[in-house]
C-alpha cells in the first residue's frame, strides 16, 4: 500500500493536470453542445495557440499569463471566421461534412505549423516555471496551480455567459430548437460562429496557461484532444460544469492508475471511469436525458 506521502501529492497532481484537461475540454463541449460539431480541429487549434503564445513571449516579451488578454480575442475572431466562412458554408448543414471539414482543417493547421516552424520542440523559460507551493511534503508547481484557478475562472465565466446574458440565451435557444430560434429573429449563423469563437478562445486560454509548464511542437495538441473528447462525453455533451468536473475526475483517475498500474497503463483508469459512468449514466455526468 502506498503511503499518504505519495498518495496525497498524486491526487493533487491529478487535480492540477485535470484542470488543464478541463480548459481544453470546455471549448470542445461548447462547440459540440451547441453546434453539434465534433471538432477535430480542436487539437490543431491548441497547437496553433501554443505557438502563438510562444512567439508572443519570444518576440513581444509578453508573459503567457498576460498573453491571454491578447490571444483570447484573436482566437475568438479566428474561430468565428472559421465557422462563419469555412465550416458552415462547406458543410452544407450535414454533420458528417462538418466532421470531415474540421478534420481537414486539423491536417492543414498541423502541416502548416510543421512547414513554418519544423518539428522542433520549443519551451519558454520563465522565472516562475520552477517555483513551487509547498504543502507539507508536497511541492505543487506554480504554473499548474495557476492553470487550476484559471480553469475554474473560465468555467464560471462561461456559465455566467450562458446563463445570464442575451448571447447565452440565444446560444441556448439555438441549441434547443434551431428553427424556433430562427423564427424568433435570432441570427443562427451568427450564433453558430459566436459559439465556435468562444470555444476557440477557450483553447487560446488553455494554451497560455499550459505553456509555462509544457512544450510546443506542431503535434502537441494531439496529446490532449483524445482525452478532451472523453471528458466531453463523460461530463455530458454540452455541459460546462460536466466538462470541469469530468476533467478533474479523469485527471485523478489517470494519476492514480499511473501510480498503481504504472505510467504505461495510466490511460486504463481514464477509460474504466468512462465506461462505468456511461453504464450508469448514459448521458454523462451532467448531460440532459434524451
Amino acid at each position: 500500500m502506498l503511503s499518504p506521502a505519495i498518495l496525497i501529492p498524486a491526487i493533487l497532481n491529478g487535480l492540477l493536470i485535470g484542470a488543464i484537461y478541463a480548459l481544453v475540454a470546455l471549448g470542445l463541449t461548447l462547440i459540440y453542445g451547441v453546434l453539434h460539431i465534433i471538432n477535430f480541429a480542436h487539437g490543431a487549434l491548441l497547437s496553433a495557440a501554443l505557438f502563438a503564445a510562444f512567439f508572443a513571449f519570444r518576440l513581444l516579451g509578453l508573459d503567457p499569463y498576460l498573453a491571454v488578454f491578447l490571444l483570447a480575442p484573436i482566437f475568438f475572431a479566428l474561430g468565428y471566421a472559421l465557422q462563419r466562412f469555412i465550416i458552415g458554408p462547406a458543410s452544407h448543414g450535414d454533420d458528417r461534412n462538418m466532421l470531415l471539414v474540421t478534420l481537414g482543417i486539423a491536417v492543414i493547421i498541423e502541416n502548416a505549423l510543421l512547414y513554418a516552424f519544423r518539428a522542433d520542440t520549443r519551451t519558454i523559460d520563465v522565472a516562475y516555471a520552477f517555483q513551487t507551493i509547498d504543502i507539507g511534503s508536497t511541492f505543487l508547481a506554480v504554473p499548474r496551480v495557476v492553470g487550476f484557478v484559471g480553469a475554474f475562472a473560465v468555467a464560471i465565466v462561461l456559465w455566467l455567459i450562458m446563463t445570464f446574458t442575451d448571447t447565452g440565451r440565444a446560444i441556448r435557444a439555438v441549441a434547443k430548437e434551431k428553427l424556433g430560434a430562427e423564427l424568433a429573429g435570432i441570427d443562427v449563423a451568427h450564433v453558430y460562429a459566436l459559439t465556435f469563437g468562444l470555444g476557440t478562445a477557450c483553447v487560446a486560454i488553455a494554451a497560455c496557461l499550459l505553456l509555462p509548464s509544457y512544450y510546443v511542437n506542431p503535434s502537441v495538441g494531439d496529446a490532449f484532444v483524445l482525452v478532451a473528447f472523453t471528458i466531453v462525453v463523460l461530463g455530458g455533451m454540452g455541459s460546462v460544469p460536466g466538462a470541469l468536473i469530468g476533467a478533474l475526475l479523469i485527471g485523478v483517475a489517470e494519476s492514480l492508475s499511473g501510480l498503481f498500474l504504472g505510467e504505461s497503463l495510466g490511460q486504463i483508469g481514464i477509460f474504466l471511469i468512462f465506461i462505468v459512468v456511461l453504464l450508469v449514466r448514459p448521458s454523462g455526468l451532467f448531460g440532459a436525458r434524451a
Partner: protein
Amino acid sequence: MPNQRNLSRRQFLATTAFGAAATVTGSIAMPSVLHAQGASVKLGVLHPVTGALSYSGQQGRLGAMMAIEEINAAGGIKGLGKIDAVLGDAQSTPDGGTAEVEKMNSAEVACIVGGYASNICLATTQAAARYELPYVVDVGVADGIVTRGLKNTFRFGPGFGVISKTALANLAAINDQAGKPARTVMIVHEDSLFGSGLAKLLNAQLPQQGFEILETIPHPTPTRDFNNVVLKIKAQNPDIVIPANYYNEYVLLARTMQQQQVRPKGIYSVLGGAASSYKFVKEFPDAAKYIMDCNHWFDPRNERAQALKKKVEGKDQFFTYEVYMNYSCVNLIADALQRAGSAERAKLTAALASSTFDGHLMPYGPTKFVNGQNEGAAPVNTQVLDNDIKVVLPTAFANGKPVFPRPV
C-alpha cells in the same frame, strides 16, 4: 420538432473514434514523398518527420540532406552522377515507415537510409528485405534489427548490447573512481522497443556491477506529466537515476525533478534523449547541469565534424546525434556506390558488406560489417559541464573529466 441535426451518442462515439484515431496517428496527412530533380542515383531518405518523433526525424533528414548536397556539389558519385533524394515520412510509426518503403521500392531507389526509432527500423528493414533493397539504419539500437539474418540490413551505429555494456562499465569506473558513493539505482524508460529493450539489459547487468535496482518505471511516449514518476523516485531516494527516453519526455522528467527538488547523486542516462543535446543544455542549463550520458557522439577531434557543427549551427539548428549519424551514413552509402560502380541492389549490398569506410565523423575507426552490424561502432560518455557537453570517457576522445557525485 426535434433538432434533426443532433448526433446520437453512438454516432458521436463512432465518428470521434475514427477521427481522433486519424488525427492522433496522423494517418491522414500530406503526401510525404518528395523528389529532388535531375539526378541519376535514387536514395531513399526515410525518417519520422511528423508525429511524436518528428524533431529527431527532421534532424536526421537534415544530416542526410546536408551530406547529399555536399556530395552533389562535388560532382556526385563518380560514374553514376548525382544523388536524387526520395524523401519519406514514417509518421513516427512502423506502419508509416513500411508504407514509405513500398513507395520507395516503386520509385526504384538504390538504397534507403534512416528509420531512426528501433520499432520503425525493425519494420522498415524487413519490408525492404522483401525487395532485396539495401538499407542502412541510422540510429535504431534494438539488437533485433541486425540479428534476423537480413542480408540487406546494415547498422552503422552501435546497438543495445554494446551500448549497455559500455555504459555500465563506464558507470562502474566513474563510481569506483569516486570511492563508490552510489549503490542504488532507479531506471525510468519509455515503453516501446528502444526503452524496454534497454531496461531489460540494464536490469540483467546492473546487479553484476554491484548496483541494486530499486525500481524500473516504464512510461509511454508522449507522456504529459512526470509528477507521479518523480514522486516514486523521491520516495525511494536512489543514488542514481537512469533515464532512457526520447527528447520531450526527458526534458519533462528533468524539469519535474528540478521542480520537486529531487537531487540524486547522479543522473546517468543511457541513450538519454536530451542528455547529450545542446538544445537542452542551452534552454535548461540548471536542469541539465552534471547530467551524464552514454550515447552516440561525434569525434570532437575530427575537423570535418567541427566544420559540420559550425555549418549546422549556421542554419540555426542544433548539432544533434541524428544529424551527424545520418551525415555519416549517407557518406558510407556514397562510398559503397562508388566502389560498386553501379546502383544495382545486389552489387551495392555486396559493396556495403565489404565496406572499410573511415570518412565518417564518429569515434569508430574503419567500418567493418559483421552480419550487418558495424563492429567498430561504440558510444561515448558525455557530461554537461560548464554549460557545454564534454566527452569524459573513453579518455582517448575525452575533452573533460567526470564530476561525480554531483556537487550539492
